[in-house]
């Protein structure tokens, strides 16, 4: 480096965002900067640091030019894949291969979903749906189901409901039993999102019946995978209805079926699905949380994290950490809860899972509030901004507004609290979420419930 070159400072993310125009084309670079940013050590011990959000993280200038080149190359590869897939769709159509068209379209749906481009993924899935109708493809149910999954991911719950129902019926008509089971499971999950527990149980029941009726035709491993997730999901609905004992029964069945049973070590049961261990422990932890067994919940969540291993745990570990943070917070262990929240934040930013950040900031806001910080709401303000900037699902906005209402109430800003609560309710109503009769709070468990 030339001696005359002034030293390059690290810049704050919010400063960088303010410099650049708001443009989707810049998103890959900005996402990369977010992923590689770090907390500002100078703010470590200040209240401002404790309340710092992603915008106050630092981006190092070393190697920035190389970063730009590398991000551009990655983006070029992505665009190339995307366009080549479009070419493959056209070529298959020209050759009169309807299944080839559907296959290329659905492959791209998967790729786009993996990149978090749900709007694009949904558009490709809808194109696939149209093609399956036109060509009479046997994958019609699958295409509808993927469109439903994208709609759910985008928070368009009403559309997701009808797409899953259509997917279920079409899969049955096409004799695709597994697709029908997964679609029924997805439909149940949307009902969970909307706080409609009985409706969810009805759909999970349909899915289980289909498995039992067709168990001879299903490969055992596949049937087991479908079953344990349904048991797990039934644990969620029973838990939310307050039927804790039966919820525990479902979780236990999920653990036994998946091979992640707690007694696996002693009984020598083969652990057949490593992911099951994480999900079962996490679900069970949430049951303990609902029961008010906070220490048990904490241990369950810690076990879920341990099951993830010491490496990067993926998006699931962010959710587990948020749950662990809540268990610690409710035990009055605010310091640890805050640390766990920060770990979740770092992991979500590193992994590029910005859609997870609002829930993390809701936790950190609660932690800061419990620690007496009047600026706790800053996390919620940033979460709301993120939801709007990134087009995250509207229930994230509603859940954040709900938390904000609680904080404003606690600060004595009753009017602002009531307004925030009403704004949240309006969103929930729009999403078809059932509100409790006294309308004090909603009944949704956003994002819980999983399909295979």
């Amino acid at each position, binding site marked *: 480096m030339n001696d005359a070159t002034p030293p390059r400072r690290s810049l704050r993310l919010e400063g960088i965002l303010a410099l650049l125009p708001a443009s989707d084309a810049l998103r890959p670079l900005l996402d990369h900067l977010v992923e590689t940013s770090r907390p500002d050590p100078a703010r470590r011990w200040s209240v401002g640091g404790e309340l710092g959000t992603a915008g106050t993280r630092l981006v190092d200038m070393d190697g920035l030019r190389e970063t730009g080149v590398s991000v551009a190359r990655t983006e070029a590869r992505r665009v190339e894949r995307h366009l080549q897939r479009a070419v493959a769709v056209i070529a298959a159509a020209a050759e009169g291969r309807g299944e080839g068209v559907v296959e290329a379209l659905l492959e791209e749906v998967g790729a786009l979903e993996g990149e978090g481009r749900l709007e694009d993924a949904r558009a490709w899935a809808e194109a696939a749906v149209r093609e399956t109708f036109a060509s009479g493809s046997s994958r019609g149910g699958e295409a509808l189901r993927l469109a439903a999954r994208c709609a759910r991911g985008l928070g368009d719950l009403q559309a997701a409901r009808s797409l899953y129902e259509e997917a279920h019926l079409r899969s049955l008509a096409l004799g695709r039993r597994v697709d029908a089971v997964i679609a029924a499971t997805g439909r149940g999950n949307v009902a969970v999102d909307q706080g409609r527990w009985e409706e969810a149980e009805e759909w999970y029941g349909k899915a289980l019946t289909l498995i039992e009726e067709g168990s001879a035709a299903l490969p055992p491993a596949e049937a087991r995978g479908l079953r344990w997730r349904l048991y797990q999901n039934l644990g969620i609905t029973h838990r939310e209805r307050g039927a804790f004992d039966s919820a525990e029964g479902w979780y236990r069945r999920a653990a036994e079926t998946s091979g992640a049973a707690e007694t696996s070590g002693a009984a020598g049961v083969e652990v057949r699905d490593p992911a099951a261990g994480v999900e079962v422990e996490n679900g069970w932890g949430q049951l303990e949380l609902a029961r008010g067994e906070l220490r048990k919940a904490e*241990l369950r969540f*810690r076990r879920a994290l341990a099951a993830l291993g010491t490496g990067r745990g993926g998006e699931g570990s962010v959710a587990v950490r948020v749950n662990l943070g809540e268990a610690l917070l409710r035990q009055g262990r605010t310091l640890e809860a805050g640390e766990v929240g920060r770990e979740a934040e770092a992991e979500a930013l590193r992994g590029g899972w910005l859609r997870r950040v609002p829930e993390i900031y809701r936790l950190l806001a609660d932690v800061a509030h419990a620690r007496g910080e009047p600026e706790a709401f800053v996390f919620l303000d940033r979460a709301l901004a993120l939801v709007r900037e990134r087009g995250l699902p509207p229930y994230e906005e509603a859940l954040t507004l709900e938390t904000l209402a609680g904080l404003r109430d606690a600060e004595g800003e009753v009017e602002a609290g009531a307004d925030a609560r009403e704004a949240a309710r309006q969103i929930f109503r729009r999403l078809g979420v059932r509100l409790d009769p006294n309308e004090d709070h909603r009944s949704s468990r956003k994002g819980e419930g999983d399909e295979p």
Partner: protein
Amino acid sequence: MSHKILVYDSEGAHKLCMATSNRPSVLLHPPLPEVEEALAPLARVRSEPRLGDFLARLGDQEWRAAVLGLVGDAQEWALLPRIPSALSSGVLVVTHPDPTVNRVLEAEAAGAAALLSHPPDPHRLRAFLEPYLVEEGDHPIPPRVAGEERVVGTSPALTEAYRTVARVADSMTTVLISGDSGTGKEEVARALHRRSGRRAQPFVAVNCAALPEGLLEAELFGYERGAFTGAVGRSDGRFGRAHGGTLFLDEVGEMGPLLQAKLLRALEGGEIERLGSGETVRVDVRVVAATNRSLEERVEDGGFRADLLYRLSVVRVHLPPLRDRTQDLLPLAEHFAALFGERHGRPVRAFSRLAVEALRRRPWPGNVRELRNVLDRATLLARGGVIRSVDLGDPGAPPGLAAGGGGWEDGYPPHLSLREVEERHLRRVLSHTGGHLGEAATILGIHRNTMTAKVREYEIDPRDSDARIEGEMGG
């Protein structure tokens, strides 16, 4: 402190030794030669093959530690609640082949510090027990007096600060409190409020560094519904809420120029205007400000208005960093230990000598806030009412390591190889820098490439947080 001990001899015979010894003693069931060997350098180990005898002996002795393996049937496990509470100053570790969540909690309820897999890894067990074997509580922590409000510390700097507070509390004078982050500036501001005639009115704090400028303006002066995106309701703002009381502006130096001008107008005229409203509102607010950086320097570089500084700093109070008022350290540590012990329902009665040394050795860059956090955690980790050096934590320590002292001078146990120490230190520094390799290389005085090579060599993921240990109790 000396102990009556039971000596285990290598031929399997036990004899009670009534002499006193400085060596701590450990009771073990069932006998595990590897564990005995691992603990031998630290303690006298008495192995007890019969469970009934183990339980009977547990009450006879002042064991510093006991390791109870419950490897039999459910009936054996059911004995757990019958364990006598003889280990009031020691630690009980239970082992079981299948440490389920319920068993962890049952062991915890019986007073165990940990439930580990059986048979335990001797080295892990030793690392866990080491601080309990080498440290005793010999610095008592006075109990907290309920409802007591007092200044903690006796250093001349602190005394002077509070003398100033007493002199100016009952006036409308603005006060500027300076000091590094975490030195307790808000406490001083609260003391000013408590001692003023405004004590029955609100004390409202706002942290200027925590909020982006637009949000800070809205928070300070209030807003009408719809005044900006996200203004879902109407707010009186902090000035409005502090009417009749005190408004504390923390990290005021972070305020942007536009807001500085607006604040100055509010201070001079005693009037504010909510965002989205044309009305001015009169407010009666005493303003106390704080800064962790030199505002004079900010004025010189054009970042802060000189007239606002003049307005805010009619009286000044300075709080030096904790490292410059070491005589306040222990009283503060005692205060926080008692406070958090009470808050967490885990009263603590003493610090070990090594814990006190560890407290004195640390540089405390985060000042009182850091000390408070350390003691918050330590009270959760402490066993037998004693805070030991290991409880004071070391965020960079690898999992399972008895961190932060524990009988060794430099933070690492003496039996480690140079390579092990290097790996641990790399992890600590990386944790300190938040995984940033460049910063870590600078601290370690090595080239970045060397740092990268070492990270690869030791297979360290710089971004990894500490792994959790299954079955071990966190608090």
